[in-house]
Each structure stands twice: as C-alpha cells, then as structure tokens.
C-alpha cells in the first residue's frame, strides 16, 4: 500500500511536467496511478502493513485494508481514474491551469487512498487534512473568480474546524485506550464518559466533512469547482470520507447511545433538507449537489445505526451512490460542455439530439431514484429492510427514510426532465465518445452491481459480520416484502411530488444554502474580534510592549517569590570589603548613565561601570572575565565614539514627566524583583555545583589547566559554537545596515592603496588632520600587540587568555591603527575582507569540531597530542586549540567589520554630499 501511495505522490510531482510535454493526453497516463489502486484492491482481499515513522512519538505508518477499506479503495481508484480520463477531454487543450489541476487531483487521489487504508488514527488525521487542503486548492481552481475563492475558503474552514475537533476526539480516544491503532482500539474499546466525548468530537469531524446538517452549506457552494472536481470530490471521494469514518467506527462505537442518536438525527435531517432543496434548484449541478447532501445524510444515518443489516445496506449505498452520482456529475459536465449552460429552464431537446448521453443520464438517475434492477434499488431495499423491524424508534426512522426516498425519486425525475426533456430542438453538437465513455462506464457499473447483487453481497458481508441482527443478503428480489412495498410507495409519492413541483419554485432560485448566513455572521464576528483585539493589544509602541512584558514578569515572579515566603536566611555582606567600594562605583555610574542628558556623558559613565565590573571580576577570582570585560569595554568605547560623531550631542527630551515616572517605576519594580530572585535563588541553593569535577576533567580530557577556557572550547563547546555563530550574524547585520547598497559591500574588502608610492608610511600622505607621530607610534607597537594577542590565544588553554581575549587584543590593535590613520591605514594593517575572516573562523571552528568524527569521536571532542620536535622540544598540542583559533578569527573579523562599517564606510558617507542619502 505504501508503494501505491508513493506512486500517487510521484505522479503528482511529475504531473506538471507531463502536462507540459504531452498536453492533456498526459491525464490518461496519470490516470494509471488511481487505476493501479483499483487493480490492486480488486485482486487483494485484505492487507496489513506497518512501517516505522516517528518512533519517538509512537507514530507509525500502519496501514490496513479490510472489506470496508477495499470498497473505498475500489471507489477512490476507479472513479479517480475515470474522472481523470474524462478531464483529458473536458478541459480545453490550452487550459493554463491544467498542470496544476492534474498534480492536485492525483495528489488528492493519493491522500484519499491513504485516508481509507490508514489504521493509525493520527495517520488517518494527516491524510484527512491533506484531502482538506487539496480540496481547497481544487475548488479554487479558477482563482480569478470570487465565488470560487469564497467557496474554497468556506469549505476549508468548515472542514478544518471539524477536522480539529476530530483530532481532539482521536487523542482522547487514543490516550484513553493506550493505542492509536484502530485495529487495536476496536477490539477493546474503553467505556465511560470520555468515550462519549470522543464520539461527539469525532462525529463533528465526520459531519463537517460530509456536509451534514448543520454543516451542509459548504457543499453546494463548492459547486464553483470544475465539474470533474465535483464528480470526484463531492460524489465519490472527499465527502465520503466522513461517511467512511462513521462506517469505520460504528461497529465499535454503536454501543454509545450518543453516537447513534447524533448520527441518525443529523442524517435524517440532512436527507430531508437536501431532497427538499434539490427540488427547487434550476442549476443541474446544484440540484445534484443538494441531492448529494441528501444522500450523505442517508448514508450517515444508516451506517451510524450499528446493526448488521444497516451496515450492509449502508455499504451497498456507498457503492451505488458513488457510481451514480459521479456519473451524473460527469453527464452534467458534458451537458455544460456541449450547450454552455446547466440551467434546466434553458435546456431543451437534448434527449432527442443526444440519445447516448440521455441513456447514460437516465440509467444513472434511475439508480439514484432506486429503480430496479440497479445498484441504488438493491441498496435502498436493504436500507428499508434494516429498519422494518417494527420497533417504534425504527419505524419512525423508516418513515423518514421513505419520505427521503420519495424526494430522491422526485428530484431524480426533475433532473432527467430538466436535462433531457423539452420539445424545442437543440442545435448543440453531441459529445465525442472519449468524453462520454467515463460516465457511461460508471452508469454501467451501477447496472452491473445491481444485477450482480449476490457478488456484491459476498464482498461487503465481511464488513457487517459481527454486528447484531438477522442474516440479510443483498439481492434484487426478496419476494413480496415490506421493503418492496415501501419502494413502491416512495416511487409513487416521488412521482406525485415531481408532478406537483416541477412548474413551481421559480422563487427559490439563487438563494444561498441555509447556514450560509450564520457562517457569514460568524466570519464577520471573527474579523471584528481580530480588529478589536489587535487594536487593543498591538499599540505599535515598543516601550508599551516592553512595559507589558516586564510587568508580567514582575507580577509572575513577584507572586512566586511572595508565595515562597519565608525566604531562607543566609547573607554575608561581601567576600572582601573592596567589593562594596567597587560595587558602589558601578551603581553610581549606572544611575548617572540613566540620568545623563548628553550622549557622551552616558557613554563615559557606562564605560566606567563596565571597567568597574571588570574589577569586580578580579575580586571574584575570575581573571579571564576581567580581561575580556576590560577589552570589550574598550572596544565598545571605540564603537561608541565612531557612531556618536553622527548623532546629536544630547538626547531629545520629551516633556512628558509622567511617562518618565512610569518608566522609572517599572525599572525599580523589575530591579527589586530581580534582586529578590537573585537572593532567594542563591540562598536557597542546596545542590552541589556541577563544576566540582571540572578541574580534573579539564586536565585529563581537555588537556588544559585554565578551567574556564577548557569549558569554553571543550566541555561546553556547543555553547561557544552557537555564540560565535551569533557574532558572525551580528557582524553581517552591522555591515548590511551601514553599507547602503549591496554594491557598496565591496568596500568591506580593502580598497587598493592610494597613490603611487610604496614603502613605509605611504598611506600617511595627505591625511592632514591626522597625527603623523601617532601613526608612527601605532605602527611601532602594532606588531607587538598582535604578537601578544597570539600569545594570549595559545597560552589561554593553561593561563588567562584564550581565543576571545586574544582576538579582542588583535582587534584593538587594528582599531588603534584606524583611529590613528583612517581607513587607508586600516587597510594597510588588515588587507583582507572582513567577511572572509569571519567565514574562515567559522570554518576552522566547525571543521575542528567535525574532525573528531572520522576518528570515532564525538563532535567537538578534543584530542591531546604530545610531540617531541627537534628544535622546539616538547610540544603539547590539544586539538581544541584550533577551535579557539576559529574563535580568535571571528572576534577579529567582527571588530574589523565594525571598523569598516561604523568607521571607514561612515567616513565615506560623511564626506559625500548630503543629497546622496
């Protein structure tokens, strides 16, 4: 079965190319996919397959085809193939949407196939929603028509709503039963109120999919679809999915009284409503659509009952309905094709002009009306027999069914009369045999199924076996029985109704199906709610959003903190009194920065805070942190200086004192909560630090003495990997914000050196505002600093330093060169593209991480190599050093990018005339 699904998927993928290459003939080729499914189902009685899918979730592709599944596969495959063959003649050869249609149609057939053979309920749901989405695309085939778009969306929303309810029902059921395999659940169905909940939810899905009351309105609207789509989706396939689900679950669920009550009530109501509306339509296709609604109601009512006879009758009706209704849709398509209209008030004389078409139509309609010896008759007899038990409830249902059958006879007659009757001769050209053949085949199959009723009985009986009730058999002749009498009553009454109504009902035309208004109101309400809700919450103001988020944090964390009272009591003022002094500096600087009016003041104060934090790190015993913090602070100041020259000296002050107070209030609240959290978390801590074993691990596995560095490049190297990736992204973001045109990005690479001269200090020429002395000094110390950065890089494994610190030192050396001599000096110092440095760094880091794989290690695992080299003596080499080299390169690349963007490119833009912006 998986092979068949794969064949459909492949055919769907290839369809557009095939249609492009072969034109509409390609549809014949594509029809082979559903035809293969048909062939397989005809030759296979039952089948079961299981393939692993998502073992972590317990999901598997569990497929099972029993008697019911087999019937559905035959219908899905057979009708699908015939409708595709029909479409090859129905669409114009130059129809631009044909490739899309073919792909979607075959994909739909595949999804439908998967739906009816899925054993796992979740898998069934997946296919169920696939059919929903594909039907949306198929109904909206003609996207330029508003009616088509609207109908497609309506069908999508209604069936998805039901589908979601069904999913919840499946989950309730599956969790309750401990399995999602229907073959497992069915044998051991749990009972209780949860089962009722699941039953109702699943029925919601089935009712919405099969367009039963109160969801009936979407199906007539979906007639905006091309006729082949209607013939397949709205007669044989998609709408049958709900019926199939009811049929599949009823044998087990019939114990639930709710299931029976809902299915039978909704079914009967739909049967009568659909039949009544069908009698009032002028559009043949709409007439059929309401007829379908009516018949789907009948099917659900019968299949939801849960007796053996009813199940058999329902299955027979599913077969009969698929055959006659798709045939009739195809006939309507032919009529539309040859005459250009589907309005039965305009059609006339077609019966005489096209006897073959009329014969097909009459044969199919007769099956619909339930006349012998057709499949419809056999099915209807069985339906009547199922309820002719004499029990009061059954008799009431039977009355409804007979009334529905009478309406069916009436609208069948109306169809034949409307399509083929009339005395006025027609001028239309008869259809070619290729267009007519599929419909003829389907109608003939309905006749064959009627004549061969015992064979059909043998095929469908396994489905009904095991259900309670007498051993009824499908047959054309049961003797002079009650059902036969009821059939006669229905036909007579139907003929009378037709005679009474065929001249009337002009007024009802163009009325939208009942329920449309409610749907519109609902959608309008949703739209309105969305506007109001968005308007109320999306104020468009960033401070507002942040304030809300922070207040939520204050409230949640504050409540949690208060609930956790009393707090543990454990506090010491400091590790060393010096911390209090430095801490006071940080606090004062931070408060000052928050109050500053001048940008420069704020920047200096925040720098002070940063350096003071570095001192705190030293006092804490964290030299690596102190080093990095001090270097980063310096780099930050450089960047600030570069950008602040383009910004106004003072912040624009807003006169709103109130809003400022609110900000401070929120800030103080957040600060208080954060401090309280910090205290409670630290004071309440019981667990021993995980890092207790790190020093030993660092030496034995990481091959280094500096524990912090080993953590960075080995123990938690994945974190570092993520972090340097963020740095690359940030650098790229900075560059793309500053370089206004992508062509300017070439400036990220160094420009050719200006002037003809070579030699030392050649770039210093002409830079009048720059100090030569400063340039010379920076050149003198530049290489020393770079050397020092390399020392930090390589010694970092055992002593304070490492890739971050080393990279920052080298980057600051570049910054000094730039500050002293401008962009040419920077280019002379680093004649490389910043992007390439970043890329190389990432490549080296990732490459080092992956290098362990070929040797059977894990990603980012380090190896330690001790070598004795002739000159250098003992060399202790750890592979993670290369990872650190990557980090070093990325940090250098980041700062180089910043210098080129915020520095050099900004210089260039500032020297440009203003109108360039």
């Amino acid at each position, binding site marked *: 079965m998986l092979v068949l699904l794969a064949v459909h998927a492949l055919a769907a993928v290839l369809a557009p190319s095939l249609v492009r290459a072969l034109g509409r003939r390609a549809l014949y080729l594509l029809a082979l996919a559903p035809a293969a499914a048909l062939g397989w189902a005809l030759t296979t009685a039952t089948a079961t397959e299981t393939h692993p899918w998502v073992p972590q979730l317990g999901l598997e592709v569990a497929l099972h085809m029993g008697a019911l599944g087999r019937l559905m596969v035959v219908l899905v495959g057979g009708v699908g193939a015939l409708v595709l063959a029909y479409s090859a003649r129905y669409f114009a050869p130059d129809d631009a949407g044909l490739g899309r249609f073919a792909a979607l149609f075959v994909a739909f057939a595949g999804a439908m196939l998967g739906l009816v053979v899925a054993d796992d309920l979740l898998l069934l749901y997946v296919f169920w929603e696939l059919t929903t989405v594909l039907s949306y695309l198929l109904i909206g085939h003609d996207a*330029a028509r*508003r009616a088509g*778009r609207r109908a497609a969306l309506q069908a999508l929303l209604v069936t998805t709503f039901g589908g979601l309810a069904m999913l919840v029902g499946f989950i309730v059921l599956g969790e309750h039963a401990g399995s999602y395999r229907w073959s497992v659940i069915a044998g051991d169905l749990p009972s209780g109120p949860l089962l009722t909940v699941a039953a109702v939810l699943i029925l919601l899905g089935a009712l919405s999919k099969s367009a039963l009351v109160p969801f009936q309105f979407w199906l007539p609207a979906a007639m905006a679809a091309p006729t082949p789509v209607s013939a397949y989706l709205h007669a044989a396939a998609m709408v049958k999915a709900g019926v199939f689900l009811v049929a599949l679950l009823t044998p087990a669920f019939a114990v639930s009284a709710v299931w029976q009550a809902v299915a039978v009530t909704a079914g009967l109501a739909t049967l009568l409503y659909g039949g009544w509306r069908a009698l009032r339509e002028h559009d043949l296709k709409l007439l059929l659509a309401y007829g379908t609604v009516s018949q789907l109601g009948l099917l659900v009512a019968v299949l939801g009952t849960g007796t053996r006879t009813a199940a058999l009758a329902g299955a027979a009706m599913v077969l009969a309905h698929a055959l006659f209704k798709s045939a009739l849709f195809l006939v309507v398509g032919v009529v539309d094709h040859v005459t250009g209209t589907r309005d039965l008030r305009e059609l006339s004389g077609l019966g005489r002009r096209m006897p073959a078409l009329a014969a097909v139509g009459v044969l199919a309609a007769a099956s619909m009306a339930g006349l012998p010896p057709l499949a419809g008759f056999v099915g209807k007899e069985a339906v009547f027999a199922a309820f002719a038990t004499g029990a009061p409830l059954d008799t009431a249902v039977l009355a409804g069914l007979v009334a529905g059958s009478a309406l069916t006879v009436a609208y069948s007659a109306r169809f034949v009369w409307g399509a083929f009757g009339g005395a006025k001769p027609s001028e239309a050209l008869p259809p070619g045999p290729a267009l007519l053949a599929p419909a003829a085949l389907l109608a003939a199959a309905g006749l064959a199924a009627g004549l061969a009723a015992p064979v059909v009985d043998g095929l469908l009986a396994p489905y009904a076996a095991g259900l309670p009730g007498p051993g009824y058999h499908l047959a054309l002749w049961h003797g002079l029985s009650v059902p036969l009498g009821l059939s006669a009553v229905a036909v007579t009454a139907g003929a009378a109704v037709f005679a009474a109504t065929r001249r009337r009902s002009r007024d009802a035309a163009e009325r939208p199906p009942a329920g449309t208004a409610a749907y519109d109101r609902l959608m309008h309400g949703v739209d309105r709610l969305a506007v109001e809700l*968005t*308007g109320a919450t999306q*104020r*468009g103001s960033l*401070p507002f959003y942040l*304030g809300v988020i*922070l207040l939520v944090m204050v409230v949640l964390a504050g409540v949690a903190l208060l609930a956790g009272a009393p707090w543990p009591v*454990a506090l*010491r*003022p*400091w*590790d060393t009194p010096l*911390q209090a002094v430095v*801490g006071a500096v*940080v*606090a004062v600087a*931070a408060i000052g*920065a*928050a109050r500053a009016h001048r940008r420069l003041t*704020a920047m200096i104060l*925040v720098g002070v805070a940063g350096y003071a934090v570095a001192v705190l790190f030293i006092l804490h*015993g964290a030299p690596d*942190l102190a080093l*990095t913090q001090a270097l*980063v602070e310096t780099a930050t100041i450089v*960047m*600030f200086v*570069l*950008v*602040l020259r*383009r*910004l106004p000296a003072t*912040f*624009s002050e807003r006169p709103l004192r109130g809003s400022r107070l609110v900000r401070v209030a929120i*800030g103080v609240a*957040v600060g208080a909560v*954060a*401090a309280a959290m*910090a205290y409670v*978390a630290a*004071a309440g801590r019981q667990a021993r*630090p995980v*890092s207790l074993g*790190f*020093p030993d691990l660092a*030496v034995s596995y990481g091959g280094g003495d500096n*524990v912090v560095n080993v*953590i*960075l490049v080995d123990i938690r190297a994945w974190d570092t990997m993520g*972090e340097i990736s963020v*740095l690359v992204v940030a*650098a790229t973001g900075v560059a793309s*914000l*500053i370089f206004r045109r992508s062509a300017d990005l070439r400036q990220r690479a160094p420009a050719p050196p200006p002037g003809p001269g070579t030699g030392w200090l050649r770039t210093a020429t002409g830079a009048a505002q720059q100090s030569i002395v400063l340039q010379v000094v920076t050149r003198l110390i530049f290489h020393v600093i770079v050397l020092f950065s390399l020392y930090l890089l390589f010694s970092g494994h*055992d002593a304070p330093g490492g890739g971050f610190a080393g990279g920052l030192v080298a980057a600051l050396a570049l910054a000094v060169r730039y500050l002293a001599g401008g962009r040419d000096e920077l280019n002379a110092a680093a004649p490389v593209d910043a992007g390439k440095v970043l890329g190389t760094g990432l490549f080296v880091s990732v490459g080092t991480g992956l290098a362990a794989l070929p040797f059977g290690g894990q990603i980012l695992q380090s190896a330690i190599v001790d070598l004795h080299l002739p000159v250098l003596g003992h060399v202790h080499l750890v592979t993670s050093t290369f990872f650190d080299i990557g980090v070093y390169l990325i940090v250098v690349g980041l700062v180089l990018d910043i210098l080129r963007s*915020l520095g050099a490119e900004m210089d260039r833009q500032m020297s440009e005339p203003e109108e360039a*912006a």
Partner: protein
Amino acid sequence: MTPNLVYVLLVGVLFATGVTLLLERSLTRVLIGVILLGHGANVLILLGGRAGDAPIVGATPEEGMSDPLPQAMILTAIVITLGMTAFLLALAYRSRHLVGHDEVQDDVEDRRIMVLAERDEGPGTADTSDEHVRGSA
C-alpha cells in the same frame, strides 16, 4: 550557599537602571540600557558560583578555586553583548541617517488598526477584491 549582599544590591540597581533606559525611545539610551542589563545579568550569574582564586589548575588548589562554570557562561555573554552593541549602534546610525534621529517610532500599521478598532471600522466580509483580480488578470 550564602549570597553576597553587594552582588544582590548590584543586580537590583543594574536591572532597575537598565530597564528604565530600555523603555526609552532613543536607541542610544536603549543600547545603554541593554549594556547595563547585561552587566546585571552577569553579576546575577556570578552569584551562582562561589568566589575564590583563579580557576587554573596548578596555580590554585582546587578547594580555593572560584567556580569556573558561571565564568565561562559570563564570558560568552560579554562577547555577545559586544556584537549586540555593534548592531544596535549601526541601527541607531541608520535610523539617524534615514529619519534624522535615532528614536524608535510607533509602528504605523499597528496604529492604523488601532484607529480602525476605535472607530468601529475595518474588515467586514473577508473577500471583496474580485474586480481587482479580474482587472489585473
């Protein structure tokens, strides 16, 4: 574990000042707020490990070492803040360049919807664009 009072107070001050600035409209102030918040978060993480001497095997006996794990986390955080600072500065410059100042403006589209909601106007039925589509097809 016994928390260090200086750190606890510092976390409070840094978060309070940082958040206050974060709620401003000027991007430079927002940026300074981010930096201060970053310091606050770093001190908060620092609280999670004991103080001591440099965590370097050989230089410090293991009992006297400060906890290295929070340090490694803070180290990455510091460098990330550098990247973040650069990005926000570039954003501020860009904003100044394009609109003449570095203030975060209200989202125009959001404001429009807000006004619609207040006036009880806005989308009624979902799809009314038929003529347009036909016209362009």
